[in-house]
């Protein structure tokens, strides 16, 4: 079932025209950052949704990230629902970081606790170069 969902999600992304209202030029297109952390909020809003997570650091502290997604209308058409992620969920996020170094980025995909991998349908997603996780 998970597999089927993944296939459907990929098909939806491949088959749907993904057009943009906004420029995503302020995000780094040359590398991705992989964050593993605990969700503090999944905000289901327009113009874009946000996923807030706390990420444990090597020194024992926690760093907070607020990760931008796409429009909830686009996400809904790709199969997303507002209850798919909850506070407390441990997730892994691949994001294109903000160029200015602030603790934020554009989500390219998220892996949920049950292993489901979802994409929010970023326009021209192939223009973001994916790099391996640092750890």
């Amino acid at each position, binding site marked *: 079932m998970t597999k089927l969902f993944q296939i459907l999600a990929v098909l939806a992304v491949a088959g749907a*025209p993904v*057009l*943009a*209202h*906004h*420029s995503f*030029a*302020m*995000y*780094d297109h040359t590398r991705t950052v992989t964050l593993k952390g605990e969700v503090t909020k999944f*905000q289901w*809003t*327009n*113009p*874009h949704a*946000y996923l*807030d997570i706390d990420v444990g650091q090597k020194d024992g502290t926690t760093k*907070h990230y*607020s990760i*931008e997604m796409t*429009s909830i*209308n*686009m996400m*809904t058409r790709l199969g997303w629902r507002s209850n798919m992620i909850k506070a407390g969920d441990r997730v892994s996020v691949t994001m294109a970081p*903000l*160029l200015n170094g*602030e*603790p*934020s980025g554009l989500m390219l995909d998220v892996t949920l606790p049950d292993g489901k991998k979802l994409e929010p349908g970023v326009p021209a997603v192939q223009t973001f170069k994916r790099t391996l996780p640092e750890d």
Partner: protein
Amino acid sequence: MRIFSFGVLAILCAVTLGAQQKTAAPPNISGAWERFGFNLGQPTADGQRRDGTAPPRSEQPTLKPAFQKEYQDRLAAIRDANAKGAPIATGAVQCLGEGMPAMMQATFPIEFLQSPGQVTVIEEAFTQVRRIRLDQPQKKIEDVEPGFYGHSVGHWEGDTLVVDTIGIKENIRYQNVPHSDQMRIREKIHLATPDILWDEITIEDPVVLEKPFNVYYAFRRMPNYTLLEYICEDNREFRDANGIQQIHVNK
């Protein structure tokens, strides 16, 4: 008397035919539609794409010399800003609707609603609405307050909805092309197949353009789709003092 009778008959026939033409039901274009045909591959020599139901390739505008530099400089500035990672803020950054004719790009699904005397078009993104009044005379440009969607009148010519739009604010630009208050947008909206709708748009502006240019959009019927609401509830993007797109980061 015979000539008179024949004349009356001819007039009656003409009136009846005219009435029949007038009352022929327009095609049903009501419902939800999604943009279609822009990714079907390279256009062939005649401008058509591989799939015959996709529209011809849109034309580039030819501007008068006085406006050409401003237009090219603007396009170059957008390219440079994107390359630097500091994009120039568009209206969308401030959650403003695209206006006409950009709304008809249908970045998100659009809906046509046919009601007596009016065709209404709704674009899901930014909840944009335009109203096309049917069988009304167009106003004079100077009698229309400029807006995002302008003043649209239309009528059915057979199976084609012919629409005339004036009164677009000069800062509401289609693909960064400057325009004057004399801009006029003509549309021919018709079904290419029962489930593919074309919008053939001609943009005229005797002040800015050397000649009118045509752009084309096609839409595919979404029979089971209901347009979703779209409210800019938490817009963290903003336009800074230099006109650059920025974003607040919640910490």
